């Protein structure tokens, strides 16, 4: 997309980029000028250092700037801290690039706001009607129940460093879990950033696997890549859990060797995708980032003109 000489979430370095949120498949390094919410810029600085961009231009939710002959506004997407939809207005027409989004409640970020528009660009990570995420508090209740059935085992939960980790922690706290939560080293920096942003995560401790005994019966969060490998094997008889929308499908959970699949996602499920198409009222929808065909078909059933927009570099993001 380049209506005003800039790109949204470009996959290769560009002159001017607008970034929807800090996940690595959206916020890539090396752009000369980057515009994003202050939280997203902070996340990019934390993850990419100087690679975050030449000049960083913060744009708060709801503020409008003109770039060429296009007005740009960022609106909450409900995906992770700082995540935004990019609203573009030009010659009386409005397009919304929603990035990744969800409609389910999340104490760690501002909720999604539907924006009425002419063209809506939507993700479709979970663009099949079998993906319908259950309420997240029920999934956390299953985790806490497992901890009562296996009180001596270490429960290790795979969760992405940005967003999922902090959301799972707030869900646990909301469910009354007030013991310290142990974190794999890779998760700590972004938790600190969330806390700086005023999000209460309770007591967090580094999970030093050297003290496997101390972690007996504890709850450990780790990146999904670590839960089934060398790092986790040093824990005490771990119960391996993974918090991801993909866990809805049993075969996916089995492939990951997961004993306790937790269906907790930061992406819209099928019902949220369909509701959102209805809410934004756009007569034209571009579908990207996932399983486009089913959502394009569904849009057609709703009388919406839809087409798949295949973007290179958008793999299957686990969330």
């Amino acid at each position, binding site marked *: 997309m380049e209506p005003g000489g800039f790109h949204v979430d470009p996959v290769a370095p560009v002159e001017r980029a607008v970034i929807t949120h800090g996940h690595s498949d959206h916020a890539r390094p090396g752009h000369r000028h980057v515009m994003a919410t202050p939280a997203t810029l902070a996340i990019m600085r934390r993850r990419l250092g100087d690679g975050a961009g030449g000049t960083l231009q913060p744009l708060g939710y709801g503020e409008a700037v003109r770039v060429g002959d296009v007005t740009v506004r960022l609106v909450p997407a409900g995906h992770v801290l700082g995540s935004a939809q990019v609203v573009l207005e030009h010659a009386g027409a409005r397009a919304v690039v929603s990035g990744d989004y969800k409609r389910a409640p999340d104490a760690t970020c501002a909720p999604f706001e539907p924006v009425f528009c002419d063209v809506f660009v939507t993700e479709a990570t979970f663009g*099949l*009607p*079998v*993906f*319908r995420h*259950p*309420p997240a508090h029920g999934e956390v209740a*299953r985790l806490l*129940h*497992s901890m009562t*059935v*296996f009180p001596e085992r270490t429960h290790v939960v795979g969760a992405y460093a940005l967003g999922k980790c902090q959301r799972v922690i707030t869900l646990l706290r909301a469910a009354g879990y007030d013991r310290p939560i142990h974190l794999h080293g890779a998760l700590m920096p972004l938790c600190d950033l969330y806390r700086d942003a005023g999000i209460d995560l309770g007591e967090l401790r580094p999970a030093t696997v050297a003290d496997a005994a101390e972690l007996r019966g504890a709850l450990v969060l780790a990146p999904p890549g670590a839960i*089934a*490998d*060398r790092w*986790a*094997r040093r824990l005490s*008889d771990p119960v*391996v859990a993974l918090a991801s929308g993909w866990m*809805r*499908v*049993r*075969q996916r*959970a*089995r*492939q990951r*060797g*997961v*004993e*306790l*699949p937790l269906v907790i996602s930061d992406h819209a499920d099928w*019902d949220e995708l369909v509701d959102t198409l209805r809410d934004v009222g756009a007569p034209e929808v571009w579908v990207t980032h996932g*399983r486009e*065909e*089913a959502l394009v*078909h*569904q849009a057609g*059933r709703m009388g919406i003109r839809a087409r798949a927009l295949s973007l290179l570099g958008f793999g299957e993001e686990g969330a």
Partner: protein
Amino acid sequence: MNRFAALIDALAFMPSRNGKIRLLVDHFAHTPDPDRGWALAALTGTLVFAEAKPAAIRRLAATRVDAELFAWSYDYVGDLAETVALIWPGGPEHGAGDPAAAPGLDEVVTALQGARRADVMELVEGWLDRLDASGRYALLKLITGALRVGVSARLAKTALAAWSGVALHDVEEVWHAVTPPYGTLFAWLDGRAGRPDAGTGAGFRPLMLATAAEEGDAASFDPGDWCAEWKWDGIRVQLAARGAERRIYSRTGDDVSAVFPDVTDHMSFDAVLDGELLVVRDGTVAPFNDLQQRLNRKTVTAAMLRAYPAFVRLYDILFEGAEDLRPLPFVARRARLEHWYEAVRPRRMDLSPLVPFAGPEDLAALRDGAREAGIEGLMLKRRDSPYVAGRPRGPWFKWKRGALTVDAVLMYAQRGHGKRSSFYSDFTFGVWRGEELVPVGKAYFGFTDAELVELDRWVRAHTVRRFGPVREVAPGLVLEVAFDSVNRSTRHKSGVAMRFPRVHRIRWDKPPGEADRLETVESLVDR
């Protein structure tokens, strides 16, 4: 239904047997009657009602979901019940119903048991609208008879014992006298009522099992105290014929009568017997592989009855008529068994002979000479041993002949389960046929934890290809593999299959070119 669904979900993902037991214990402890009893029945396969066909479920889904969306979804998920459970547009989690209105397991089972087949799908449709995705999945698996969560009747009974503190063999003794939803069983295990009457029917009586003899035990095998028998390589069974009832039970109490009519046909007596189920042709015991053709089936064809005729070699007698012989010493029971056999002469059965021996050395020679098909080694039974349920250490020993070994080359490694899920711990190995390696077996154990770490490291460093959880490794590591026997097999590329292979030693020192050849393995095949 929600509790049952949560149990089904948790069991399905639980790799370890011990973990499954703890999940069941938690369920029995926290679920009221009769739901826990129905759950027990559903898991142990004792629930009977008109089942629904997958095609009917598919038709039902088609009334609610767009055909193309369903097709894409089914293609992705790969399981019909799971697809329908996930895609079903009703359900309380989507605001279509009140979670408190979800049907209980009792409501579902009672209604299904009373329903005519023609009315089942209408009931199911109503329930699907009131259940969440987990509940819908459990319901659909239940009504299609496809609840596969790796829980055997034995495991469920073990969990009942673990939860209640009652001994497993006591649970087994009454198991066949109680019926779903097992109110009297739970009342007893809860301590609210006495033990249910085991009855005089053809119920299963828990078996007496032998422990493996160790080096130190052998010296005490004196013919004055011990009787010896061959240890036959079949499956241990109990024959129970009481009145009109004729049952064959596996060692764990599973009723396998239906697939062995060639044995039940000849059980026109009133007794409970202990023996070994074998395939015997013209008086000769066939390899275990032949018996395997008759196991794990729901039905049996006339051709199979002809090709693999079943036979029972009798070891012991537990009841003759109504008389409980279990408290008698072994030699007294043996005398009763011999008299009984002389009088009844049942076809397709004979007596396992006692093996005379002079002393421990003689016995060791007999054991190691026992290479013919159908014999795994020796059984030693104390002359004064009563028939006691379970596996008491002391009165009975099994003394297997030494294992066979070959040097094989590691070919593939796969991630294990549970504790071992982060290690490559399942090893497929092969031997040379000309210039190529052909797989001859797979071993999961026999190495120490420390060796596992080294094996895992070796696998990671020598991987040449990956297929999902499996890694193919370069031929570079020799494993000395021990196994009990080897049979011809058409299912394996090598034409042979090992029984109970395990890693005996890791031959870090041995070049793979010096590993054994297929001809060597073939020479060990049982006749």
